[in-house]
Every structure is written in structure tokens, then in C-alpha cells.
């Protein structure tokens, strides 16, 4: 710790995080000088990448396509998708991981895109609602949402569709209790849950 207190040492200054802020974080032991790409510091015994504070290069793989972007490290995956790639199916509603309207798949696992930083999503396969259709044919989950009128204003719908697909992939024949638990991470204001329950039942019957 002591040797790093030397203010002339470049590693911390160039990490973009002030020394004072560093000292507030418990357990940081050493700052490693920069190499190409993000700087790495060791925090609580683990190496941690440090980005920014300005724009940094970010590469995202979305729906099978690679995109090179310049983003501030604080930009969320959701905002990167919506404001930088014009992929707007995932919606911004609560912007803090509470409502599920921004649900996307990251390496096939449902995540809240507003609670993932774009820099954290690098090297992962991001799948959004836009890619579920095959050509002009709706995915069985999407078709079931249409058939059972599981959307009204539709703002929560893309998140629900993605969450439902991820849920059914893991629970192809869910019990009502599993449905209640498995989809409790998404909220709807118009009250389309009844249609969503019917839609899930339809897909489970037919098999997705």
C-alpha cells in the first residue's frame, strides 16, 4: 500500500480514478501499470479492469453481428443498444433493474440490459427480441402472445417475450407455480398477465 501512495507514480493517475477515490475502496493492494486496452488494478486480491473516464472502444456482438463503438464506460448495454445501434426493442423504463422491460439474452441467459454495462457485455453473445423471428415468421412465443392478446400498449412486451423464451427454454413444461416465479421479474402496467399466462400455456402444450 505504502509504495502506491507516491503521488508521482503514474499508474493511478492514468487509470482515471483519483487516488482519493481509490483509498475509499477497501482492499485495493496494487495498481498495475498500463498495457494496451483497459488498465488493470488489483482490488480485493482480484485483477479489475479500469476504463475511462472518456470514451473507450467497445465491441459488442448483437444478434450475431459485431459492432465497434466508442462509449463512455458508464453507458449501459441498454443505452448502447438503443442509442448507438438503434436496436430499440428492449425498452428503458425503470433504468435500474426493477421492471424487466429491457430484458435481453446474454450468452442465452436473461439479463436486465439496464443493469449491465456495455463494457461488461463484450465478448458475450447478446440476443434481443428483434432476432427471435425467422424471416417474417414469428417465434412460437411471439405467436402465442399474439393469439392470446398478451400485449396492450406493448411497452413491456418485448421484455416479456424474451423473458418467456428464456424461461421456457429451461422449463419446457412449467407448472403454474414455476410460471409465477419464473416471470416475476417483469412488470406490466396495462395488466396483460392473464394473456401472458395463456400464451405460456399454449407454447408449453405445443412445444416451442
Amino acid at each position: 500500500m505504502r509504495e502506491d501512495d507516491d503521488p508521482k507514480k503514474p499508474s493511478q493517475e492514468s487509470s482515471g480514478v483519483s487516488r482519493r477515490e481509490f483509498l475509499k475502496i477497501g482492499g485495493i493492494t496494487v495498481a498495475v501499470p498500463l498495457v494496451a486496452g483497459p488498465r488493470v488494478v488489483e482490488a480485493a486480491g482480484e485483477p479489475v479492469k479500469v476504463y475511462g473516464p472518456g470514451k473507450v472502444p467497445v465491441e459488442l456482438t448483437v444478434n450475431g453481428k459485431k459492432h465497434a463503438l466508442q462509449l463512455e464506460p458508464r453507458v449501459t448495454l441498454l443505452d448502447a443498444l438503443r442509442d448507438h445501434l438503434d436496436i430499440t426493442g428492449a425498452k428503458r423504463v425503470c433504468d435500474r433493474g426493477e421492471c424487466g422491460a429491457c430484458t435481453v439474452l446474454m450468452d442465452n441467459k436473461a439479463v436486465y440490459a439496464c443493469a449491465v454495462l456495455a463494457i461488461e457485455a463484450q465478448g458475450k453473445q447478446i440476443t434481443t427480441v428483434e432476432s427471435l423471428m425467422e424471416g417474417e415468421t414469428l417465434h412460437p412465443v411471439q405467436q402465442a402472445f399474439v393469439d392470446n392478446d398478451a400485449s396492450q400498449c406493448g411497452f413491456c412486451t418485448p421484455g416479456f417475450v424474451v423473458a418467456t423464451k428464456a424461461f421456457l427454454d429451461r422449463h419446457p413444461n412449467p407448472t403454474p407455480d414455476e410460471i409465477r416465479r419464473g416471470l416475476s421479474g417483469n412488470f406490466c402496467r396495462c395488466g396483460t398477465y392473464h394473456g401472458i399466462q395463456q400464451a405460456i400455456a399454449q407454447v408449453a402444450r405445443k412445444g416451442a
Partner: protein
Amino acid sequence: MPDYSWPAAEQRSLIGKRISRVDAPLKVSGRAKYTYDVTRPGMLFGKILRSPHAKARIVSIDISAAEKMPGVKAVHIIQQPGSTIQWAGDEVVAVAAVDEPTAEDAVRAIKVEYQPLPHMVSDAEPPAGAGEAAGPLGEDDIWDALDQMPPAEVAKQLGQYGVSFKVTEDLLEDMKKYDVPSEVIEAARKATYHEVKEGGARSSYQKAVEQTQGDPDKAFAEADVVSEGVYGLPVITHCCLESHGSTVEWPDKDHLFVHISTQNVSGIAGQMAEPLKTPAANIHIHQDHIGGGFGSKFAADRWDITAARLSQKAGGKAVRMMLERDAELEVAGARPSAYARVKVAAKKDGTITGWQSQSWGTGGPGGGGMPPIPYIFTIPNLRKQHTAIRNNIGPARAWRAPNHPQAALITMAALEDTAAKLNMDPLEFFLKNLDITGPRRDVYREEFGVAADLMGWKEKWHPRGQNISGNIGRGVGLSLHTWGGRGHESHCDFTLHPDGSVDIKMGSQDLGTGTRTCILIVAAETLGVPLEAIKLQIGDTMYPSSGGSGGSTTIGGVSSSTRRAAVDARDALFAKVAPSLSAQAGDLECVNGTVRVKSDPSRSLSWKQACAKLGAMPLTIRGNNPDKSKPPDLTNSGVGGVQMAEVEVDTDTGIVKVKKMVAVQDCGLIIDLKTAESQCYGALIMGISYSLYEEKIMDRTSGRMLNPDMQFYRLAGISDIPQLVVHMMTGKGYDERGVVGLGEPPVISPGAAISNAVANAIGVRVPFLPLTPDRVLAALSQKAGA
């Protein structure tokens, strides 16, 4: 005269059937573009600095640091130093920057000095003797009152108290434009002007005049039973998932182009014109889809006007100004609270004879009016008095069925308590008193029968608190409601093209209620072609105007204007086609994509062949509602609905679980049964949400909302949804009334039905919604101590 009336039941192939909404494929695939999804070339991001104080004077504002930041393109002071803030979250300064992080940094760099002033955010019962008699009404008071009380009451208050400002012709014109009833406009014109001293502090309590009918004192003196209770529900928010906002730009210095999340596409340009000193004709409004409104999105709000000013300062570049979630919950929509101490007088046989209530509630700075209590039941002897609380919680907005859920809860809970005191089954008690429910009484009677069967009421109802096993109490409750829902003013252009294609242009919006689908159903039914054969364009001021979507007025309006245009277009086509079929125009019909002779279907043309007879030019017809020159009236007003709820209450934890809900509803002729049922399912779910969870919780010390997020402003989730049963009343006695709106009615009763079911389950009334564990346990402990 062409026959515009709705086709008879046996002739309907689409109307009244279950048809999937046409916009669903776009919505489930993420392709539907909402205002929040719009990106414009070179678009800037707007952010607003909001007041942290509930009441304060702005002393100074320093924007110099923000203006100098790289990437900041415009800074606009919304409220100048010297202004008084009336609620936390009120807009003070706005910025526009090249990206959102920069805009956030710029907001943080603005320095505002406030002089905090004493605030009040409570809506607790006014202390005894509090409350000034109502004074003259300000302009805002009138608009608030129009949102919150019947027009006759507003007119009466104007006559009684006069106004505190000079009523101008401009204001009266505005009132006309916003469909303010003429009795109110006349009352405003004649209202006496009273000067109000500048700075004269108004009391927080505005006491309305006591209203009396019959002889309440005699009714209570002679009553066999008098039931007393206190009931109420707090301020809740709209919590639209797509927050309020717009993306605004000036393509040139005289023209404005606005993407806005609105329930009122055709009305927004007129609202932006005055503050921006730009003719409404130069303002282009567009919206494809809206992520929820529920009554809170009729206006061009201050942030929308601000976006236009920022864009102006930034050389016309588009500025996206969408509210953050906390602002959405703090400032962009609240339903007024309502509470009442109620006494009900009844005879031994269950006849209601008297009502007495002292009510109070708040709609924010404007105070607000009394909900229409007693609701639906015209009780012969009554005395009621209301005190409006003016406070600093932010302004109220219309919330789905304004004032009715409040009135239903207070009334139906008080009446159910009366039934319990009489040891009567509430179903029997309500049926006994249906004679004083007015014109819908026979509908209620029929609906109660249907609902009781669907709920299994007879088997499930037990006297209060007598169905508790272990720590689980089970109970059922009921309620009833009404609403108007006549179709609004609506216009459309309906075009048949010589190549057989058809298009409809209408300045309406589709809130997700199925408006698009219903317009297409009416048009396709009339022309005998499939829905997919018709192209519908809505959501733009380039199209004929159609009313705002509020008060369940849309379906009646858009279906009527579409029907008239479609009939005229069809008949014009018949006239062109008749000679080639050697028939009279009146002998033709369109069925299954053909135009044919009724008496000899073998003489027919395909739709495409028929349209080719139009010649070189397309045929465009304007359809209107209302249109007295083209009878009959295709829409109507007045619906009745009843609901029943079954609950389980854990008496150890106080947790309420709704097990089943039944909604039985009429709404005249149903255009699309599927989306109509969805309105009811959705309303039941929204009702469960406000019954069990929702409350805008204000901190008395800081004056701020404590739960402006979606973790602590809890909405019902999929795990809260019980068995839901919806039954629409259709067929004879209903269909021939014409089309009536459905958005509001089914959301009115859930609070009352669920509260009554909980009282039935645990044997004691939980006075206030939401029925949270702490409130349930408090009621139980009071019962135990009593």
C-alpha cells in the same frame, strides 16, 4: 338515404367476434416504434434539473459552468429566480447535449440557490374547524375542478363563489375547444369577479358547502340500524411504462416537428402554438405507438415546450426529452386521494334510508373536488360535506375513470358494512336496493345473477369472519359501477383506389386498447373485404382530427366516423358498378371480396374488378362523428358493471391474496370481443395492483416522494394474478344500443370488491387501501381489542 346503422347480428362476420389485435406482431417483435425509440439525425439529449424542495423560492441560478461544458448545446432556464416552487421535482433548468452522460454532467454543474419555504404534503383528516369557506376560483381551480367534479357542480361553484381573475374571451374559447360543457362556460362568463389580495396566504383546507337532500336527521333518528365507518384510498401514480416526453425539432425556423407520447395527437399542436408563438398549422405531431397513458398524457407538458426551446437554441436540432422514472412518478401523474367518515341509515329489511359523510382528499396544489358519493345509489335523505386539501405533492391528473374508483370504494364499503350490521348477505342487500340505482338497475340485476353464478357466491359467502380456519380467513366481496363512454368527435378520410386498395387516414391514437383493430374491423365488415386489405394510418396531424383518448370515448368516435365513411364509399362504388352488373346500386352488396347482386349472387365482380370501375381517380370520402345528417346515432352513453372478488387473508402475517375475480360488464355493441375482454382482464389486474400495493408515499419532513421507483412503488406482478373470469353482456338489449366505451368502467370496482372481500374474510374493515399487511394487522388488533 343510405343505411348507416350497424349490421344486424346475423350479418356480422367480423364485428363482435374475437379478433387478434393487428398491431400485436409489431409489438411482440420489438418493431413497434414508440416515441422513446425515435432517433433523429444529430439528435441532442435533454435533461432537466428539478427542485429538491417541495416549496421554495428560487434565489439564484448559475448556468455558466454548464454552458461552457464541451458537448452542451443549449441551456434554458424554465423558472427564473424569484419564482416559487410548489412541489418537489418541479422543473427549474433544462439542458441539451450531444449525449446523455454529457447532459447529466451539465445538470450537475448547474448551481441553484433556494430559499426553502414551509411545505405540506399530508392528506390526513383536516383538524376540527379547519378550512376556509371556498373563495373565488382561480383559472387553475376551474380546470382542476373540471377534472374532478361533475360539470353541474363546477357551474354551481362558479355562480356561488365567483372568480379571482378577469374571465377573457380567449379562456372561454379554450374551454369550448376542450369540450367543456356549455353550462360551465356560461357560468364562467357570468361569474362575479372578486379581487384577491396579492400574497394573501390561502388556507390548506378548502371547505365546500354542505349539501343536503331530504331529511337526514329524521332518517337517522328513525333508522333500525346505523352503520359508521371511515374509508379511503391514497394518492397513487399512473406509472406509465413509457415515461412522458417528446423529441422536438425545428426543420426550419417557422415549423415544428414533434414526436410525442400522447393520448391526444390531434390536440397537441394547438397547445404548443400559444407558448411557442407558432401557428398550430405549422406544428406537425406524430406518434405511432404509446407506452401507456391512463389519463396522464393529454397535454403538451412544460418539458415538451422546453424541448422546443432547447431545440430553437441549438439551431433546430432534434432534442429528445423523456422523463426519468423518478420524475415520471413524482410529477407526471397522480390520482387524487379520497377519504370519508360515513354514516348509513337502514331499515331492518335492508332498505337504505340515509347517508351522511364528511370527506376529504387532495389533488395537490389545486385541492380537488368531492368524489361522486354516495356512488350510483340515490339515497333519499343525505348530508355531505367535503374539504379539499391543497398541498405540495404535485398536481393531479385524470386517472382512468377519474373519481369513480374513490367513490365506489367509499360507498360500497360503507354499504357492505351496513349489510354486515344487518346480518344480511350483501348480494341480497344490494339487490334489494337496486331500485335507487337509476337507469341501469335492470342491467345490474341481470349482471349480479351472472356474476354470482360465475363466482359461486352462494357457496362461498359466509357471515363476516366465520370462514377462518387456522390462520387463513376466506371471504368474498362485491361492487358495482357505471360510466358514460359516448363516442367523441372523430373524422377520417376513407379512400378507395381504382386498383382495389383501400386506405383510411385518421388523426387518432391507439393506446393499446385495440383502436387500430376496431377501425379495421368496422371498415372491413362494411366493404366485405379482409382486414389485411385495408391500410390504416393514424397518429399524425396530417390526418383528419379525432378526439383525445380519454373517458372511454375513443371506440364510439372512431367506429362511428369509420362506419359512415365506409358506407358512403361502398355506396359510391355501387353506383359506379351497377351498370356493368345490369342492376340498381341499391340491389348490390359486398360479401367475401366481391360486389354482387343480392338477388342473384352469380352476377358479381371481384373487389378489384369493381374498384377498376372508379375510373382514373381514387374516391375519397370524409367520415364524421357526430353527424346528424347521417343518422342513426351509432354510439351511446352509460354502462353498468358488477364485480366480485374472493380473497384469502393470512391473519398472522396480514398478507392478502386475491384468489378469484369475476367481472360482468356491458358496453353496448362490441366491435372486437377479444380486445374488449382484455380491457376487463387488464382493469381487474390494475385494480388488484391499486388495492394491494400502490401508494405515492410522501415524506412529511423533506416533502419528497419516498418511492419514486419501481421497487418501492410496487405494481402487481404475474404472481399476484388469480383466476380471472370476464363475462361481456351482449346480444339483445345490449347490441342495439350502439357502441359505448369500455376503458374506464371495469377499473372502478376492484378496490371496493376486494376491500369488501377482506372485511368478509377477517370480520373487520380495513379502512384504507392499499390493503398492506400493516393495515390488515392493525385492523385485526383493533378488532381483538374491541
